[in-house]
C-alpha cells in the first residue's frame, strides 16, 4: 500500500507533509481536505480578482470602482456571488441539455485539477509530482474541451463563434508555450518544481547565494526570451486581454458564455480568475525563482515527513493535548513553519504582481483579430521559442 | 458656373422641354418624367457640368400633386442644381437613378417607404424605415394614423 501511494504521488514521498504512508482512507480524507483548501483558494482568487479588476479598472479610467458595498467595496464580489446563486436556472430551449450543464463543470475542473501540482510554498503542495509541468499542461487542455462544449451546446451562433475561436487560439499558443517550458526543463534537468527552484538557488557565476540574480530569467538569454513567450502564451490560455477573443465583448456579444446565466456563469467567472492565478504562479515558479525570492528563507531543517517530526518532538507527553502544545512550540517546527510562511509570501507576492499586470494589460490594450493571434503565435513566437530552446541546448553543451 | 449659364446650357441641350420653376428661394428646373434619365446622364457626364454628387432625393406632396426633387452638386466646379419632376397622384412612377448614383438606391427606397413612389428598375424596392407589414404611406397629406399595430393600442 505504501509504495503504491508513493509511486502515485512523487519520488521523495517521504517529505510530502500531508500524505503520510498510512491507510488508504486517511489519504482520501486528507486529499479531499486538500481539494477543498485548493477550491477555497481558487474561490478566494476569483473574489480578489473581481474586486481588483473593477477597482484597478476604475483607477485606470479615472473613476472610482465599487466602494459603497461594505468597507471600501470589499463585499462587492460576495454580493455578486450570492446574487448569481439566486438567479433562475435557465437552459435555452434548443440547447443540448446535458452538454450545457456539463460544460461549466469541465471548464472549472480544467482549471482546478492543475492546482494539485502547484506548490504554494516549499512543502505546502498537494502532491509533489515528478512530472508536475507535464501534468499541468495536460489538464489545461481539459478546459478547452469544456469551452468547446460550452460553445456548441446552447445552439446559439455567438457561442459557436466563441468556441471555434478558442479552438484556433488554443492550437496556436500551446506549442510556443510548451517550447518555452522546454528551455527551463533543459536547464533544471527535471520536471519537478522542487528541482526547478533548487536549480534557481544554485550558485551562479561565482556568487555563493545569488538571491535575485539566481532567478530563471537571469540564468541565460534563452530563459529571458522564454519568460516572455511563456507569459504571452499564459495570457492566451487564460483568455485575457489582447487574446480575449473567445468571449469578445464587442464582437460576439459575450462569446461562449452568451447563453449562461446565474451560477453556471459564476463557474466560468471563477475558472477565468483561477486560470489567471495558475498561469501567474507557474511563471513565478519557473522564471522568477518561486519561493526563493527577495525575502531570505530561514535555514529550514532537512526534509522530514510530518510523522517523523511528530514522533521526535512529542516523545514522552501523556495527553494528546500536551503533545500538540509541545509539537507547536518545538523550535524545529517553528523554523519549518517560518520557512513555509516566507516561502508562501515570496511566491504569492510574485504571482499577484503578475496577476495585476494581466489586469493592467486588459484595460489598456485593444483586442487582436483571430488570424492575427494565429499569425503571432505560429509565425513569431514559435520560431522564437525554437531558437531559445536551441540556444539553451548549445549553452548546456558548452557549459559542461 | 452661375445658375443663368447653367440654365442656358441646359436649355440649349433640351430645347423647350425644361421649364424654370417660379417660386422664390433656390432656383428649380422642372423636368418631365420621361426625359429625366436623359437630363441626368447629360449633367453627370458633361465635363463642364460634372454633377457627380447626388445630394438629396425628396418626395413632396403639395396637397394637389406629388413631385420628386433632386439636388445635385459637383465637387470639381463647386456648383449645384435642383431638378423637380411632378407626378400624378394616382400612380406616381418614375425611372430609378440607382444605376447612375449608388446613393440613389437607399434614397429612393425611403421615398417609396414614405410616399409610395414606384421607381422603375430599382434593384430591390422595399420599405427601409417602416416595418415591412406597415400599411399606407405616412407622409401623404391624407394619411390616417393606424389604430393599433400588432395588438398594441395607439
Amino acid at each position, binding site marked *: 500500500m505504501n509504495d503504491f501511494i508513493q509511486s502515485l504521488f512523487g519520488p521523495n514521498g517521504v517529505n510530502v507533509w500531508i500524505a503520510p504512508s498510512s491507510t488508504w482512507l486517511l489519504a482520501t480524507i486528507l486529499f479531499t481536505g486538500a481539494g477543498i483548501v485548493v477550491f477555497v483558494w481558487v474561490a478566494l482568487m476569483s473574489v480578489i480578482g473581481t474586486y481588483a479588476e473593477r477597482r484597478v479598472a476604475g483607477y485606470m479610467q479615472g473613476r472610482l470602482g465599487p466602494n459603497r458595498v461594505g468597507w471600501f467595496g470589499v*463585499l462587492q464580489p460576495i*454580493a455578486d456571488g450570492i446574487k448569481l446563486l439566486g438567479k433562475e436556472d435557465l437552459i435555452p430551449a434548443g440547447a443540448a441539455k446535458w452538454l450545457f450543464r456539463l460544460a461549466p463543470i469541465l471548464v472549472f475542473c480544467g482549471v482546478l485539477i492543475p492546482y494539485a501540482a502547484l506548490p504554494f510554498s516549499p512543502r505546502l503542495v498537494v502532491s509533489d509530482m515528478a512530472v508536475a509541468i507535464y501534468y499541468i499542461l495536460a489538464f489545461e487542455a481539459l478546459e478547452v474541451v469544456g469551452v468547446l462544449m460550452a460553445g456548441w451546446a446552447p445552439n446559439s451562433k455567438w457561442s459557436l463563434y466563441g468556441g471555434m475561436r478558442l479552438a484556433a487560439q488554443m492550437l496556436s499558443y500551446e506549442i510556443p508555450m510548451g517550447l518555452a517550458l522546454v528551455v527551463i526543463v533543459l536547464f533544471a534537468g527535471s520536471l519537478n518544481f522542487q528541482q526547478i527552484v533548487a536549480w534557481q538557488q544554485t550558485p551562479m557565476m561565482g556568487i555563493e547565494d545569488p538571491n535575485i540574480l539566481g532567478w530563471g530569467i537571469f540564468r541565460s538569454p534563452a530563459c529571458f526570451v522564454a519568460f516572455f513567450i511563456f507569459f504571452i502564451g499564459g495570457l492566451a490560455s487564460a483568455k485575457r486581454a489582447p487574446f480575449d477573443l473567445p468571449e469578445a465583448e464587442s464582437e460576439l456579444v459575450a462569446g461562449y458564455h*452568451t447563453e449562461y446565466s446565474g451560477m453556471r456563469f459564476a463557474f466560468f467567472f471563477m475558472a477565468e480568475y483561477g486560470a489567471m492565478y495558475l498561469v501567474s504562479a507557474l511563471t513565478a515558479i519557473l522564471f522568477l525563482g518561486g519561493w526563493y525570492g527577495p525575502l531570505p528563507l530561514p535555514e529550514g531543517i532537512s526534509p522530514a515527513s510530518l510523522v517523523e517530526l511528530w514522533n521526535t518532538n512529542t516523545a514522552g507527553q501523556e495527553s494528546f493535548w500536551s503533545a500538540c502544545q509541545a509539537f507547536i512550540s518545538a523550535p524545529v517546527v517553528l523554523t519549518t513553519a517560518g520557512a513555509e510562511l516566507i516561502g508562501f509570501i515570496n511566491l504569492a507576492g510574485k504571482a499577484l504582481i503578475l496577476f495585476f499586470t494581466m489586469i493592467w494589460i486588459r484595460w489598456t490594450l485593444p483586442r487582436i483579430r483571430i488570424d492575427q493571434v494565429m499569425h503571432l503565435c505560429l509565425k513569431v513566437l514559435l520560431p522564437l521559442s525554437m531558437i531559445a530552446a536551441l540556444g539553451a541546448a548549445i549553452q548546456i553543451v558548452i557549459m559542461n | 458656373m452661375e445658375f443663368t449659364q447653367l440654365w442656358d446650357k441646359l436649355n440649349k441641350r433640351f430645347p423647350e422641354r425644361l421649364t424654370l420653376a417660379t417660386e422664390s428661394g433656390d432656383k428649380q428646373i422642372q423636368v418631365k418624367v420621361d426625359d429625366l434619365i436623359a437630363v441626368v446622364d447629360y449633367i453627370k457626364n458633361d465635363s463642364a457640368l460634372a454633377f457627380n454628387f447626388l445630394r438629396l432625393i425628396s418626395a413632396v406632396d403639395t396637397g394637389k400633386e406629388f413631385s420628386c426633387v433632386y439636388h445635385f452638386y459637383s465637387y470639381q466646379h463647386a456648383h449645384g442644381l435642383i431638378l423637380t419632376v411632378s407626378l400624378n397622384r394616382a400612380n406616381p412612377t418614375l425611372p430609378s437613378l440607382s444605376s447612375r448614383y449608388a446613393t440613389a438606391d437607399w434614397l429612393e427606397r425611403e421615398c417609396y417607404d414614405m410616399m409610395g413612389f414606384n421607381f422603375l428598375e430599382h434593384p430591390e424596392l422595399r420599405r427601409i424605415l417602416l416595418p415591412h407589414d406597415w400599411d399606407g404611406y405616412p407622409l401623404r397629406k391624407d394619411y390616417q394614423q393606424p389604430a393599433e399595430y400588432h395588438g398594441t393600442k395607439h
Partner: protein
Amino acid sequence: MSSNENKTAEELLAQSISNPRDLTRYLQYLKIIREQELSSSVLICPFDAAINWSRANSIWPLTFGLACCAIEMMAVGADKFDLDRFGAGAFRATPRQADLMIVAGTVTYKMMPRVKKLYEQMPDPKYVMAMGACTIGGGPYCKFGYHVVKGIDKFIPVDIYVPGCPPRPEALIDALFKLQAKIAHDSPLENRFGVGGNG
C-alpha cells in the same frame, strides 16, 4: 448621530430605504421589528435580508441603448457619475447575465417585439427601468409619432420610471437607489417556499 436604540422602527425603516447599503442600520431595523412584533407582513427573515442585500448591491444592467437617453446612460457609467460605485457598473451585453433592463430611448413599433423578446430572455429576479419621457408615455413623439409606442408598460412590466428628456445622470442614480430600496423589501424566500417572513 443619536443612538439607534431609541429610534422608532419607522425612522429606521425610512433610513434603511434611503440607504439600503448600510448593513448595520438594516440589521438594527430587523432586530427592533422582531422585538416589537410589528405587523407580520413587514417582518423579513434574515435569509431574505441577506439575499435582498446581495441582489440590491449587485445589479448588472443590460447594455440596451436606443436613443439620446443611451448617451446619458453611457455618461452615468463614465467618470463623473460612476455607476460602478454602487456595484451596478458591470454592463452585460447578453440578456442572460443582466438583472436590470434600462430601456433608454424611444421604443418604436418595429423595435417593440425585440424589446419584449429581450425582456423574456432575462433570467428571474429581473427589473425594468423606463428611462426617459419616450419610454414612459411617448414623450415629444406622443401626438404625431405614428411609429412610436406610447409607453413601454403597454407590453412589459416596468419597475421604475425615470422622467426627463433625457433624464440627468443624477436622476438615473436616484432611480437606482429607489430600485435598491424596492429590492431590499422583497421577500424572495417567502415567495418561493412560503417560509421565513410570516413563518
